[in-house]
């Protein structure tokens, strides 16, 4: 109710100001934008200063524009330095190259932007070309891998449909949210992972519960279409993200989608086709009669196993089940049609896209169909209105993988199935039971279903009105807001005929989730050019975000043959989970720019959240920053070094407690029809506070060789106070956990970046960027005793939050007792993105990513050893002279070193070769582009499981756990796109 009234008042407010501005008589200006070599620059932006009017140049760099007399125009294009000039009727504007991206415009406030040259933070940006122009990934989240300096990214599962964990500048929380906030065109997008209820079948996390963090759901951010994205900015910590307030502690990823501009309508059609295969298979044990017999120590069984092997061998029925299951080739296709254009009042961008991809395991795959319409309209010269709308339908068939205590997931069942087992169906299609495991994985894959289908609308609107304008001052009212609504349907079906359904006689798990997130920002921004040397930007406003999540999960067992509706069953268990929150904030920010050389920013935000113990209390989050260009201020003369800039920024942000942290719930616990309640294992904490992150970062930027080589060096120190932790309680209290503000931790790190153009010749140019980053964390205070967290305990290696230690240390049995065995934090990471252009039309792009150090908890090998199926089971490399498999098993319970495996890798993440034809004989075709690309094709690693980049226990704090996941895949693509 309140919100509606607010909007009405805002509307009235705007109307009040419209008549104030008197339109002046415009003059027509035409011109051309060219680069240093005289070549035209298409798609450059030509904007009228202090106005909302702008146009884009066409393919020949030409533009025409009606502007008020005496106005200035601002000409900008990605990769070039921006120019501001007085308008004249006929112009030729030559733009200089901007390798160091100093003129890139970066979002720094909720309603304000600043050029990179004046930026106080290291803000990473990913362009559309870097995101999806080299070798497209399956989903948006996977497309981020290896591209964000300062991030540590892992895939939750290799299953189709995505699901990744992104940690910016170290762990920012222990059990609070560790994932960044995603903002698409001003809309705060939900990224909840919703479990399909696999735990009801796998019992991965104890028995009883329907859901667990080990169910490998996808993340909802995977729904976004990379092709629609123009640009991504990553605010890595509080010093940059403080204005986003209560949800910004883990960083903010700001996504801007493509928009239309004034000019002729252009249509582009692109088609990708390709295939996907497993990155790596582990191989299987080569059985002999003796090895088969040794699977059991029971003499009768041993004899039977030997005979079974000999029979299989004589019939030629020895199979490589790993290859049979994971060795398939999935085909993929992706079609995108986009259109953009506009006149002087209205412009639009439209796209429709569909992709359909198979998986490396049969009956798995991913489909995504989406449509986007972005419209901008100028109501007057001073009022601009825009909407971004998108509809997404995605569907992922994800199979049954990962940790499990029932022995039925594909990997776990495979781990104990030797090559001489007979799993294939008979002629009638009946699968035999697998005598070596609780499930016949061939049968499971053929008959089960685990589908996630999403229908989603994301719509944002923004209004930008100039309320007042004079020579020295401009005041704007900016309103932005939108909603993200989706319906998620999870459909899991295990027919009663499956081997492991002997008790349940068929299980159908149907989940229905509805989520609505809304947010808006209302702000006033005043820019005052006090003199030629000083300009001040003041902004103030308020924000509100809400979330309303409702998940209904029905588990039906004893199902009527062939049916999946939950009522067609003998037993039904329903669970419902709702969460709801409202966060509100007020912010004020002041930015000063002195002679384009020194820029100062200060701001403060007041925030409250319904999730806090005290829902009415406002928490205060300040921020400040300074950037000081030494060469521009004249302290250092431009010589070898140019644009030397010192910068420092400080800010605070918070992370609100999880919904329901304050309550001690009574959960349902029925018996034979009597309704019952039992205290939840989580104790409520009525005084729970948000955790507060304080980040200081400082840096030095400079360029050399006439701007052809740019460097960015950043150091940060990020302190998380009162971090939220689901602490273990002495369980004799009746509770196992309780949310606590349990202590403090810090992350310190270094990020070094370099942008260069090493080669610039007539027929070849080479652009490259190299980034290096590392992070170290330390728990500086912990008010509760250290305890193993989030994994399998000391026997198999576990995380442990402990004062004076790294937050991501892995501890476990070390042969003498319990000791530190590793750390999930990489020693460092590096990436390099390169683009080589030959003869203007042939372009080679590649991305290399190197992660050095960091350990995973790898239990995949252990499972294979236990099942007696590891490929290297019979090698003898240990001192005791027994087979390695047996040796490794003998260490379980006394030494966990073998499970804490270093996951160093160097990976050619993406490589693509593209050729563009710009002169095509057909008149209406403006250009054709061909390309071939490879995604994740080459990995150099000693890591012993499917992929070192793994996190089977979801997006939380305990990343890097590897338990028989869906193996990661690699992709090869052919591309064709036609511009009309």
């Amino acid at each position: 109710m309140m919100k509606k009234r607010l909007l009405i008042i805002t509307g009235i407010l705007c109307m009040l100001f419209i008549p104030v501005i008197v339109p002046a008589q415009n003059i027509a200006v035409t011109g051309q934008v060219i680069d240093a070599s005289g070549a035209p620059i298409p798609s450059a932006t030509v904007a009228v200063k202090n106005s909302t009017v702008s146009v884009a140049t066409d393919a020949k760099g030409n533009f025409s524009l009606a502007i008020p007399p005496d106005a200035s125009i601002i000409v900008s294009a990605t990769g070039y330095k921006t120019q501001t000039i007085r308008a004249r009727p006929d112009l030729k504007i030559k733009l200089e190259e901007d390798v160091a991206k100093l003129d890139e415009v970066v979002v720094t406030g909720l309603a304000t932007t600043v050029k990179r040259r004046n930026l106080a933070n290291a803000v990473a940006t990913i362009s559309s070309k870097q995101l999806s122009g080299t070798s497209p990934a399956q989903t948006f989240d996977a497309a981020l891998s290896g591209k964000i300096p300062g991030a540590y990214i892992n895939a939750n599962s290799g299953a189709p449909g995505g699901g990744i964990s992104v940690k910016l500048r170290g762990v920012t929380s222990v059990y609070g949210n560790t994932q960044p906030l995603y903002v698409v065109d001003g809309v705060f997008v939900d990224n909840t992972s919703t479990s399909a209820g696999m735990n009801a079948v796998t019992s991965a996390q104890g028995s009883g519960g329907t859901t667990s963090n080990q169910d490998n759901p996808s993340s909802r951010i995977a729904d976004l279409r990379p092709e629609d994205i123009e640009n991504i900015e990553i605010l890595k910590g509080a010093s940059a993200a403080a204005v986003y307030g209560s949800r910004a502690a883990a960083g903010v990823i700001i996504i801007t989608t493509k928009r239309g501009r004034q000019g002729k309508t252009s249509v582009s059609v692109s088609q990708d086709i390709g295939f996907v295969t497993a990155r790596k298979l582990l191989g299987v044990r080569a059985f002999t009669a003796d090895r088969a017999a040794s699977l059991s120590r029971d003499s009768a069984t041993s004899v039977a196993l030997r005979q079974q092997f000999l029979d299989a061998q004589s019939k030629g029925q020895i199979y490589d089940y790993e290859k049979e299951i994971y060795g398939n080739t999935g085909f993929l296709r992706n079609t995108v049609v986009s259109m953009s254009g506009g006149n002087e009042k209205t412009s639009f961008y439209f796209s429709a896209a569909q992709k359909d991809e198979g998986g490396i395991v049969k009956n798995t795959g991913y489909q995504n169909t989406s449509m986007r319409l972005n419209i901008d309209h100028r109501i007057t010269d001073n009022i601009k209105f825009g909407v971004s709308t998108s509809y997404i339908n995605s569907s992922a068939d994800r199979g049954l993988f990962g940790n499990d205590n029932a022995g039925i997931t594909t990997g776990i069942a495979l781990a104990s199935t030797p090559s001489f087992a007979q799993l294939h169906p008979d002629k009638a299609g009946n699968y035999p039971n697998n005598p070596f495991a609780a499930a016949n994985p061939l049968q499971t894959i053929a008959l089960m279903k685990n589908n996630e289908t999403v229908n989603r609308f994301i719509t944002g609107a923004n209004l930008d009105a100039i309320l007042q304008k004079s020579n020295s001052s401009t005041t704007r009212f900016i309103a932005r807001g939108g909603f993200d609504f989706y319906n998620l349907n999870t459909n899991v079906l295990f027919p009663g005929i499956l081997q492991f359904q002997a008790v349940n006689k068929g299980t159908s798990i149907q989940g229905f989730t509805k989520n609505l997130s809304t947010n808006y920002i209302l702000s006033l921004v005043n820019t005052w050019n006090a003199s030629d040397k000083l300009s001040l930007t003041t902004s103030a406003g308020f924000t509100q975000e809400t979330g309303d999540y409702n998940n209904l999960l029905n588990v039906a067992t004893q199902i009527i043959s062939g049916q999946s509706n939950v009522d067609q069953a003998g037993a039904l268990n329903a669970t419902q989970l709702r969460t709801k929150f409202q966060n509100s904030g007020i912010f004020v920010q002041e930015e000063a720019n002195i002679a384009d050389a020194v820029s100062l920013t200060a701001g403060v935000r007041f925030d409250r959240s319904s999730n806090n113990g005290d829902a009415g209390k406002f928490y205060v989050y300040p921020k400040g920053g300074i950037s000081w260009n030494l060469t521009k201020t004249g302290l250092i003369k431009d010589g070898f070094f140019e644009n030397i800039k010192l910068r420092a920024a400080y800010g605070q942000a918070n992370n609100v407690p999880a919904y329901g942290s304050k309550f001690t719930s009574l959960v349902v616990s029925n018996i034979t029809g009597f309704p019952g309640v039992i205290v939840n294992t989580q104790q409520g904490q009525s005084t729970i506070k948000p955790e507060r992150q304080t980040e200081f970062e400082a840096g030095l930027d400079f360029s050399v060789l006439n701007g052809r080589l740019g460097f960015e060096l950043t150091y940060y120190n990020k302190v998380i106070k009162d971090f939220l932790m689901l602490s273990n309680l002495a369980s004799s209290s009746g509770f196992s956990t309780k949310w606590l503000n349990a202590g403090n931790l810090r992350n310190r790190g270094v990020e070094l970046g370099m942008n260069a153009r090493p080669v610039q010749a007539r027929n070849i140019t080479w652009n490259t960027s190299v980034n290096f980053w590392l992070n170290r964390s330390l728990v500086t205070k912990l008010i509760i005793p250290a305890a193993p967290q989030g994994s399998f305990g000391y026997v198999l290696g576990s995380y442990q939050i402990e004062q004076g230690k790294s937050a991501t240390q892995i501890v476990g049995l070390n042969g003498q007792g319990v000791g530190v065995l590793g750390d999930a934090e990489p020693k460092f990471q590096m990436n390099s993105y390169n683009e080589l252009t030959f003869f203007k039309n042939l372009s080679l792009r590649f991305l290399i990513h190197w992660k050095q150090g960091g350990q995973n908890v790898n239990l995949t090998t252990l499972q294979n050893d236990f099942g007696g199926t590891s490929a290297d089971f019979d090698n003898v490399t240990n001192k005791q002279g027994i087979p390695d498999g047996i040796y490794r098993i003998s260490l379980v319970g006394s030494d966990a070193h073998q499970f804490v495996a270093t996951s160093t890798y160097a990976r050619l993440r993406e490589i693509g070769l593209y050729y563009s034809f710009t002169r095509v004989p057909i008149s209406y075709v403006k250009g054709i582009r061909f390309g071939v690309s490879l995604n994740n094709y080459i990995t150099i690693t000693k890591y012993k499981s499917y992929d070192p980049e793994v996190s089977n226990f979801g997006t939380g704090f305990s990343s890097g756990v590897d338990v028989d996941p869906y193996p990661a895949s690699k992709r090869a693509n052919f591309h064709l796109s036609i511009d009309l």
Partner: protein
Amino acid sequence: MKKNIILAALILVSLSSFFVSCKKDYGNLNNATVEDFLKNASKSDLNNLVSGTEAGMRNQLALYLDDVGVIGREGYRFSNAEPRYVTDLPGANNATLSNSNFYITNPWSARYRVVKNCNVLLQAAANSSLISEAKKKGYAGFARTIKAYQLLINLNLTDTNGIRVDVADPDNLGKFVTYNDGLAAIASLLDSAVNDLSGATVVFPLAGFNGFNDAAGLAKFNRALAARVAVYRQDWQGALTALSQSFFDLNKDFYLGVFHVFGTGSGDQLNPVFIPQNQTGEVRVAHPTYARDIEAGDDRINKATLRTTTASLSGLASNRDIWVYTSSTAPVPIVRNEELILIYAEANIQLNNFSEGIKAINTIRKGHQLANYTGAQTKAALINEMLKQRRYSLFYEGHRWIDMRRYDRLGELPVDRQGDDVWKAFPRPFTEQY
């Protein structure tokens, strides 16, 4: 122009103050809270707590039975997904019981969760102004009896490592008490419960208490548990007294008693110990000595049926499924007449009333198609016989390990692989170290 800015600023300020005054707190959307129930609970609220308590006693039940069954060498639990059943529990090679692993942390916390629920029930009943004193006594008697039973189950696991008895205040937990003090506290809790039950009115429904769902029946159930605690404390006379007030009857059905029951309804549970016969992968098989040591003709061989193929894992093998729980809704005993008859035998043998002891033993033997006891009529021989009957009568009901431990005979349990161990007690869970 300036006016407009001032106007805009004014509107913004007034809007924000409006906005500040409107705060949201959504409460708990998903379930009731303990705070709600403690205010002034109705009969139906309290009955929900009773059913939740009874239902919650079944949580982690299979794991408890596997813990004591595997260490007590009653059987093996093979799971391709969970190696620790064949490494840590039987003590393979250098493996020991860890204080952070699921086999102790899960059952331990599940029992104390029920204790907590009983404490909430006690407090909620006491705070309620909507029910009579007699009804309050009924709730209290039930709550204290179940609390005592749950504490006993945990003490069975940690033995000399002790338990906490006073756990009412989660922020201020009582100290750990020794094994003997733990048993004494459990006994006195049972005594105070039986006091509550005299003159009590029971207005709550119970599921697994067929025939024992009124105040008198609950008192009999309480005394049956008291008899078990008494023999654990070697209070033989006390055991006989308790038996006389319980449902003990030499002439009645062995399966008369109180059970955990299961159902397919929403929010209910299926019997977690049930695994169909001849499964592969996830199996629960009898220790080979079960069939080897059984007397010919003993019908209790039917509790371990022959498999079509031998199951084996990590050097352990068995060709018999444990077939004690034969369907997904089969009940699991809490205490039943057959155990009480054996307690009667034990107490009498210990008190040198051999004739009464032998009478009870023969009741058991006869009930299982065996001839009367013909062995030596000495205390030692009769105790051997009593333990043997307990082994077969109470197979996979959670007794063998505890029996062998209290008679200091863990050394007699079979060790299958070189380097295996028979553990005496589980360590205290890691969360309980302070």
